[in-house]
């Protein structure tokens, strides 16, 4: 008789979670050293879908690189494009018409809601509940339909242009967005009843994976990971960009630092995004969506430029080093999940595998965005 796995009480074994595992939502691999169900040590292995976006940035002209940003994060693509166009506009000194900025903000927030909805569904699915995913996708479809009608694509938008936008929005979009807000609020109540209040769900997440402020700082965590640990950090508030200072919205902060806090932060962020969309639609000014005078060839003056934006997954930064030519000299993309995921190795030690995977879900991972 051949002997399967030998398990001695003091012996550990290595469990490969991934690269193809249902809980990793992509090609992420975590090498877990396990003692029974407990994780002794974990090492995350990333890079399975590394595409070297940064090198592409050095080889392509500025407008040609636009479409790459939306390939970084397929769930909240517009936020990333926003960071890129903002840094290039800042570097090249392109004025953006106010209407364009408002539309950008509305679109980014819609995209953020869509992204959070998908995260919500996938997270609950990680925990074993399947139906909330379907409900979340119904609402998300509505957003994607709206975005498709304007941008022409459903996931990998190439909508923002340096100085403005590709398309203007029409009344249909505004109507649809206005109809969406009450619908989404109703859905949020439904999710609250179905998931947030559920005793099984709460028991699983309360006290799961406590992250201290210090850990967040040392790893540079952002988004709900930081805000769930009592750090009031949102780039939209801390370093206001675009037209965000015009909007009245709150940053939900929870101090527990557990997975439930991270969950609650994201759920409340959706409501805040709805508020921004509402205000954006009310305040939307008339005017052009592209500046009158826009340089034909974008050649930012030599120098070093940095722009951070708050995407659905946290603080996304673009560092642009220009040498005054039509291609960037160096384009660094600072992806938020990269830092958030880095936390995982250290924090999951001593956890049971099911808690660790719940923790992983609460980090809101999008693997192409980590790997770039």
């Amino acid at each position, binding site marked *: 008789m051949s002997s399967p796995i030998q398990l001695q009480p003091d012996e550990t074994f290595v469990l490969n979670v991934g690269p193809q595992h249902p809980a990793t939502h992509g090609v992420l691999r975590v090498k877990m050293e396990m003692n029974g169900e407990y994780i002794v040590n974990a090492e995350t292995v990333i890079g399975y879908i590394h595409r070297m976006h940064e090198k592409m940035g050095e080889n*392509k002209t500025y*407008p*040609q*690189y*636009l*479409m*790459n940003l939306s*390939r970084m994060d397929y769930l909240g693509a517009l936020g990333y494009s926003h960071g890129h166009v903002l840094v290039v506009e800042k570097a090249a000194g392109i004025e953006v018409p106010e209407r364009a900025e408002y539309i950008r903000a509305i679109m980014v927030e819609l995209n953020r809601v869509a992204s959070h909805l998908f995260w919500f569904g996938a997270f609950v699915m990680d925990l074993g509940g399947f*139906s909330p995913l379907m*409900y979340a996708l*119904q609402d998300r479809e509505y957003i994607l339909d709206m975005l*498709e*009608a*304007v*941008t*022409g*694509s459903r996931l*990998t938008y*190439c909508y923002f242009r340096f100085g403005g936008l*590709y*398309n203007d929005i029409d009344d249909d979009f505004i109507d649809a967005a206005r109809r969406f807000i009450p619908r989404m609020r109703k859905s949020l109540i*439904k999710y609250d*009843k*179905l*998931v947030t*209040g*559920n*005793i*099984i769900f*709460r028991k699983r997440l309360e006290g799961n994976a406590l992250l201290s402020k210090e850990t967040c700082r040392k790893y540079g965590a952002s988004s709900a990971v930081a805000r769930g640990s009592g750090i009031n950090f949102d780039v939209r508030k801390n370093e206001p960009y675009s037209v965000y200072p015009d909007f009245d919205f709150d940053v939900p902060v929870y101090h527990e630092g557990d997975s439930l806090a991270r969950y609650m932060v994201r759920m409340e962020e959706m409501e805040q995004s709805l508020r921004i969309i509402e205000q954006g639609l009310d305040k939307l000014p008339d005017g052009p969506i592209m500046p009158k005078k826009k340089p034909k060839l974008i050649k930012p003056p030599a120098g070093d430029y940095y722009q951070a934006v708050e995407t659905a997954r946290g603080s996304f930064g673009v560092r642009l080093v220009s040498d005054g030519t039509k291609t960037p000299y160096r384009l660094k993309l600072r992806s938020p999940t990269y830092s958030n995921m880095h936390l995982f190795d250290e924090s999951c030690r001593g956890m049971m595998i099911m808690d660790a995977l719940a923790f992983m879900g609460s980090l809101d991972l999008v693997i192409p965005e980590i790997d770039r």
Partner: protein
Amino acid sequence: MVTYFKDIYSGLVSLFIGMEVTFKEFFKPTVTVQYPYETLTMTEKYRGHVELIENDEGKPNCIVCGLCQRACPSACITLAGVKPEGEKKKVLTKYILDFTRCSLCGSCVESCNFNALEFSKEYNLASTRREDFIFDLLQRLEDRNK
């Protein structure tokens, strides 16, 4: 002891609330589209792969300036044209779109100053062969006019 029973009670209630939600959803109509049997019409601004626009005579508007070729980030477009004797404009003889590399960014359509390119509404593209996605747009234009 009181909290013990309270926990059990509130836990049970939360479970029943959840079940009530799914019970209500059970009787609502379905929202999905039965894809091969039902299809959706694409919105006006939908971006499928690019297509040539024809003029009144059924010839492409393209004047072979090559701007789209240069604007393309992934070098999907290959085009060629000749200048017939006695004509001012070039005439398009070849327009190949390598759709395997195209990311539908729209740079080509934007860069075109002669209203020669548009997005198609084609989204039912599937094949097991790579060559099927290398489109001869001129051919497609002729096929459309047949």
